[in-house]
């Protein structure tokens, strides 16, 4: 074999070795990606809907790829049983209450199984244990919601368009406000009025300020009322007296109210006297009788004075009266 042939053979050997090496490298890389050469543990997750999950899809835990889906099958209750192959190391981070859900790798990427949650206190999950799967929001559901939002948006924009048209044409309160010059003038005047009111309020505030200053003056009554204990005590006593007086006035008012109530009532004598027309008529008749009776009595008494039995008495009394008057006149002289 010549040197040239040897070189050719060597080159061919290198070429074949490189080709075979590259192929083996590809196999190893794919194998490591799929954990084909690593020791794995299998667990199951039950879902209501597989959402297109396929064997070979990835399994994530906290965003880290920890395994692959090995089998997707239906159980006797028509639930989807997904068999997962998990690496030994990440398997120790899966707990009994860890849950699974089906997501996507990116917005339009492959389906993946996402394991999440789980507390240390519940203990590590056993091999071939069944984890609970949760239903996630599917793209179809999101699109349906988006469609509903679009419809609402359409209605809102339509209504906004109507409002904008009304405003532009000067209809409605806002339209008038924006387009009516008279309204603008009124608004301007109102603002002017508000301005002057504000000025007055400012003046008032200044006066209040002065008044407050006078309150702080130690010679003033109010200041003393607030600071001098003697004056305060007197004020307190006065207020107490006023409170007592007002209590009494209240009692008197209550009595008066009670009396007035009695007068208003037709069951009390006074009320009957005030309100009953029948009694009034009786009283009127009685008064008439009294008047005539007293007139007659007066006449009778006049007659009695001239009666022989009583005439002496009246003469004696007249005489005594005249004597008394004469004595008084004499004393005066």
């Amino acid at each position, binding site marked *: 074999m010549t040197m040239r042939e040897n070189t050719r053979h060597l080159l061919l050997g290198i070429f074949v070795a490189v080709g075979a090496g590259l192929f083996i490298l590809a196999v190893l890389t*794919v194998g490591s990606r799929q954990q084909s050469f690593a020791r794995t543990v299998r667990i199951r997750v039950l879902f209501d809907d597989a959402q297109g999950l396929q064997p070979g899809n990835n399994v994530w835990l906290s965003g880290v790829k920890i395994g692959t889906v090995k089998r997707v099958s239906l159980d006797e209750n028509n639930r989807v049983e997904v068999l997962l192959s998990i690496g030994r190391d990440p398997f120790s981070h899966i707990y009994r209450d860890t849950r699974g859900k089906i997501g996507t790798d990116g917005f339009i990427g492959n389906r993946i199984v996402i394991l999440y949650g789980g507390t240390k206190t519940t203990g590590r999950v056993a091999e071939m244990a069944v984890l609970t799967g949760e239903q996630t929001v599917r793209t179809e559901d999101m699109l349906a919601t988006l469609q509903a939002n679009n419809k609402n948006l359409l209605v809102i924009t339509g209504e906004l368009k109507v409002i904008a048209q009304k405003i532009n044409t000067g209809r409605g309160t806002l339209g008038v406000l924006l387009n009516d010059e008279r309204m603008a003038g009124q608004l301007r005047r109102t603002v002017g009025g508000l301005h002057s009111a504000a000025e007055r309020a400012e003046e008032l505030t200044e006066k209040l300020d002065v008044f407050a200053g006078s309150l702080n003056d130690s010679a003033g009554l109010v200041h003393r009322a607030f600071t001098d204990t003697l004056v305060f005590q007197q004020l307190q006593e006065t207020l107490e007296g006023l409170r007592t007086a007002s209590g009494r006035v209240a009692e008197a008012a209550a009595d008066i109210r009670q009396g007035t109530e009695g007068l208003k009532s037709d069951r009390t004598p006074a009320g009957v006297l005030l309100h009953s027309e029948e009694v009034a008529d009786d009283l009127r008749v009685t008064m008439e009788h009294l008047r005539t009776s007293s007139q007659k009595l007066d006449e009778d008494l006049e007659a009695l004075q001239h009666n022989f039995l009583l005439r002496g008495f009246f003469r004696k009394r007249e005489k005594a009266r005249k004597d008394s008057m004469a004595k008084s006149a004499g004393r005066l002289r």
Partner: protein
Amino acid sequence: MWRAIFLRLYAVAAFVTRWFRVALKPPYEWREVVRQCREIGLRSIGIITLTGFITGIVFTKQSRPSLADFGATSWLPSLVSLALVRALAPLITSLIIAGKVGSNMGAELGSMRVTEQIDAMEVSSVNPFKFLVVTRVVAISLMLPVLVTFMAFVGLAGSFLNVHQNEQTSLEAFIEDAFGRISFLDLFSSAFKSLVYGFTIGMTSCYMGYTAEQGTVGVGKAANSAVVVSMFLIFVEEILIVQVVNAMR
């Protein structure tokens, strides 16, 4: 016409059967196999490297706008690697080898046939079928998987350069993404396809050359037929193998 077709089919079947019968029977012509491997493999590295590199770059560039519409340019590595491993590398390599090596084989054997060199070998103690046909078919069947693997990696390298230039993707991330979607089935089906395509090219080219007639015209015809029929059969086999592999997936 039908008679001619069936006679030709019989001749092809007999040729293939003879190949298996002769190939499995010692003695083996290893030196000639190695020489043919060198001729087929080493002599094709240049064109395979160039074609693979350009394929990787062009496929990446052409795929980018479509993926960019979805904001998914990060999928380029996995897309290119899947395309290269599953289809592009085996198919393009086979077509190049069919054009380069197949025509060469057809012309070489055809020339030997019309100049009666093969007849002379038959008279001597050398088995021309074993020495000329079996060695070539074995060599091309062995070399094509190597060339396909080589082309896939060169294509990925070209793709990486383009992706790195545009998306600033690191080599590590590129490899992670590129091999993330490839499965063992993809790798082994690609290797199997290469083997089948190599065998097809070898058998077709050798048959066309070994059975060449009509002098120098027959040599040209054999070279041309070797390329055309090989390419046609490669596409037919591609369809069949893809169907089978997809059913297994």
